[in-house]
């Protein structure tokens, strides 16, 4: 039986990588699987949006300006690494 408790998501991600590695090796997508570690390290889009928003407010931006900065970040990241 499992731990029956809450564990940090970063731990779950390491276990997911370990358990799914044989499948990823067969499918040839080890790097793509391991990228989920980056998601945890860098934060999901939601986490990044909140960081940008709060940082802007902290620097004295109005709420409207802070939201604009969030949208700019979203537009930038949507177009990032498209080859």
């Amino acid at each position, binding site marked *: 039986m499992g731990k029956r408790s809450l564990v940090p*998501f970063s731990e779950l*991600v390491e276990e997911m990588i370990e358990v*799914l590695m044989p499948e990823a090796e067969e499918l040839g997508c080890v790097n793509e699987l391991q*990228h989920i570690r980056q998601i945890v390290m860098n934060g999901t*889009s939601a986490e990044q949006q909140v960081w940008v928003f709060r940082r802007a407010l902290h620097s004295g931006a109005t709420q409207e300006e802070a939201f604009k900065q969030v949208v700019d970040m979203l*537009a930038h990241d949507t177009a990032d690494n*498209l080859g």
Partner: protein
Amino acid sequence: MPTRNILLSKRWSERDRPSFTVGIEEEYLLIDPQTRDLISDPDPDMFERCQEVLGERVTHEILRAQIEVSTRPYSSIQAVGQDLRYLRRTVIDVAREYGMGVIAASTHPFAQWWEQKVSVGERYLMLEGRVQSLARRMLICGMHVHVGIENRDLRIDLMGQVSYFLAHLLALSTSSPFWGGKDTGLKCYRLYVGHGMPRTRHPELFESWSEYQRHIEVLIGAGVIQSPSEVWWDIRPSSNYPTLEMRVTDVCTKVDDAIAVATVYVCLLRMLYRLRTKNQKWRSYLPFLFGGKRMAGPTVRLHRVPAGLGEAQPGPVF
């Protein structure tokens, strides 16, 4: 129940081996680069130009400020990733020609849903007529991943098993912390908006394809729905393709994150299939134990419930 015994004792042979092809659908929002607000009524020429380049791989969504793209199915993750990049690039380039921006986020940070316009088209007008303001409130975008599982009973079996992991997949994809200019305190607010619609949330569990089909036929026969595409569970058998369509995830802002989430999903299905060929199943739990919504919440923690592979052979635990 006899059906349960029959299904559990079924040995899947090499003949039933799924193709595990992967296809990704993403929905985006069109924004005004100056105001950063949504464009509630974009120039229709922009969509037509996208269609000239991408054909049927670009479609409308419920609201006019949305646009949806679909990759072709591929047996390699790299190929589906390449196609997704191409689709994003094309939509962004065309939008720029028309003075618009594109964001991949499941909610817009500050746009108001009541200012949006429903797309032109029979299906959307029908939806608006049937569920009224619920449809207009659907200012949310998602990512759907299709994986090819040709055997229909196996598709239903794996749907039940993989649904345990929907919370994991959601947690990797969250992109909707704001709604209508408010910090919701959640990482995924989209699901809460979507759940206003009927036949959403965690899928019902069925013993076989025929049991699933019987239930769909009852709903169609009673005039509740017109096709299985009006069942919007977090995961469902596709109504158009021989695939298991995962729909719980927010749309990822970064394309590499989207590809990683699709990778996890196909790897999970392969793993579960491999276990199934050894007559083992992922142990099932009541959804409220591992509650997908927990992953939408402010803390990134998950119930670590027992997830053994049956009593005889305890397996790795997520």
